């Protein structure tokens, strides 16, 4: 089927550019839900003749969608066991409920969980129990929440599945779980340790709690947080299998989406087996309800918008301009991508930015000796987009989620106050990433 007639006889490149700019502007303005914006942008890309419906559907990366949905279902089922509360309480008690040490421990827990789950899911799971701990400890929760936002965004950088930009890069470029782990995890460990140290200097060292308050936290019974032991065993088994599957994916010839969806199906089966049909329906419905459909539809729409822009040659043109500006030098290009991604990601949603950058970077392959030569650029893009998100409240979805939770709980999470601390800290983390990139690849 042919594309619809171009509207008003305008060249598709103009229509596609206008739609991309309008989609970006609408997402940034937050006047309309971002999923609605992306779906309208995608629909218009077809209706105005830039893409046929078949081309639009082909532009949707179902590997990304499947991976996100699969992991979200696994989390929806496994969180009911109470395992995430257990982890947070266990970590607080390990340090004898010392508030400064709890801040460090909760950052570590958040970073590790975030490496295995997406950032928004991670903060939704760890922030509520953090608030309970702070309340009992009599400590202001704001510093811990800011540190956890950082930990979620930093930890998520370490793996293919940790942060949507990585899922996008991994899927669109064909990079494996191991590629991300080997190339980014070492940097992430250093950056997270540095961030924890800086948060300690800024806030942690001044934390105090009365012995009575600490005794209250020490009285928490972590084991009672586990409310469904049989489901816990099943969930841990499935999570272990899924992670092993990700590691072995290249050898198995499987895409991450297949592994995540198999895991989701397997865990749903295990949680439904032997139960009456009505109860099974309830369990499955509940699990599907917890999938973040706004994120999923946002991705679907965005993929189509980007496919439209890509089809017009606009991104190839922009790639040429970027190469001309950096003189075709790999080091300059990588560092330019890292810092531009970081600064832009701190003010705009990093998902549309990365989705646009991927085809743009791919266009540069001939200048750097083929796809292999682009590897440092992918790591630069990933670190820039993920770490840059920490700079402002609106820089990443996890930040907005925590700010929203905090505001509802009566904890002020002001844009300027957050940025005053977070933006310079974000610059430090990107500086560390620059050193890492230069030493290892450039």
């Amino acid at each position, binding site marked *: 089927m042919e594309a619809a007639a171009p509207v008003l006889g305008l060249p598709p490149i103009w229509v596609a550019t206008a739609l991309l700019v309008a989609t970006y502007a609408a997402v940034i303005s937050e006047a309309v839900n971002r999923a609605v914006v992306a779906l309208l942008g995608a629909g218009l890309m077809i209706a105005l003749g830039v893409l046929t419906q078949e081309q639009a559907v082909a532009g949707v990366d179902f590997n990304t969608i499947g991976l996100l949905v699969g992991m979200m279902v696994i*989390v929806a089922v496994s969180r*009911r066991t*109470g395992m995430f509360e257990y982890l947070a309480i266990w970590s607080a008690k390990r340090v004898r409920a010392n508030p400064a040490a709890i801040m460090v421990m909760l950052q570590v827990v958040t970073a590790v969980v975030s490496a295995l789950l997406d950032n928004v899911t991670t903060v939704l799971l760890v922030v509520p129990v953090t608030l*309970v701990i702070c*309340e009992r400890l009599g400590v202001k929760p704001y510093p811990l929440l800011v540190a956890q936002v950082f930990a979620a965004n930093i930890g998520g950088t370490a793996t293919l599945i940790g942060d949507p930009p990585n899922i996008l890069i991994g899927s669109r470029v064909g990079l494996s779980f191991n590629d991300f782990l080997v190339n980014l995890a070492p940097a992430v460990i250093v950056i997270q340790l540095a961030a924890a140290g800086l948060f300690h200097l800024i806030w942690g060292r001044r934390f105090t709690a009365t012995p009575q308050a600490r005794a209250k936290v020490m009285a928490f019974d972590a084991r009672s*947080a586990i409310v469904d032991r049989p489901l816990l065993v099943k969930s841990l088994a499935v999570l272990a299998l899924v992670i092993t599957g990700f590691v072995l994916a290249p050898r198995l010839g499987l895409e991450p989406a297949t592994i995540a969806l198999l895991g989701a199906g397997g865990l749903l089966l295990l949680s439904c087996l032997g139960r009456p049909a009505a109860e099974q329906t309830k369990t499955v419905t509940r699990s599907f309800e917890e999938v973040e459909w706004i994120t999923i539809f946002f991705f679907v729409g965005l993929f189509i918008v980007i496919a439209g822009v890509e089809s017009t040659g606009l991104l190839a043109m922009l790639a040429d301009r970027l190469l001309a500006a950096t003189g075709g030098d790999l080091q300059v290009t990588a560092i330019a991508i890292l810092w531009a991604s970081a600064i832009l990601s701190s003010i705009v949603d990093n998902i549309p930015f990365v989705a646009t950058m991927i085809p743009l970077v791919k266009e540069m392959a001939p200048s750097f000796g083929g796809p292999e030569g682009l590897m440092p650029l992918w790591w630069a893009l990933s670190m820039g987009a993920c770490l840059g998100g920490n700079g402002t409240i609106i820089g990443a979805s996890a930040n907005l989620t925590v700010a929203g939770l905090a505001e509802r709980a009566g904890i002020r999470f002001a844009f300027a106050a957050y940025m005053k601390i977070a933006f310079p800290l974000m610059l430090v983390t990107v500086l560390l990433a620059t050193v890492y990139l230069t030493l290892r690849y450039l």
Partner: protein
Amino acid sequence: MTCRNIMTVDPPVLLGTDTVGTALRMLLQWRYLALPVVDAERRYLGLFTRSRLFGLMLPSIVALEDVLPKLAKLTDLAYLSDDLDDLRARFAALSGRPVADYADPDAPRLRPDSPLMAAVLLVYRTRNFVPVVDPADGRLVGVISTWDILAKLAEGS
């Protein structure tokens, strides 16, 4: 038939300036699940519910569960070892606060001319009584409880 025909016209109410401690005593006295909160001119401010009172005894994040994403819902609180003294201490810290701070202005409400079936559905869904508010001046004119509806039902049988 409209709400005007079946409502209780002079229900017990809380003034916005009444304290949470007063609200607890009144809830116990009337054995109600909730009380309407009004100002000195009897303008309706919201509903103070027993579950809101319970929420004050729990970690603050629990009281927000209705407006939080499902993933943010705490699985259980069995790991907390609080006893009755802890609950009393937490309540004592809040008992002097005005109920207006905790009244829910968005709780479902009816108008005096709302049809009977609108009231039946709301009472069924809220498992509570529903305030009847005059939209012209915002004043509370009555409440409709399960008992009001059941009493009318019994009259005809």
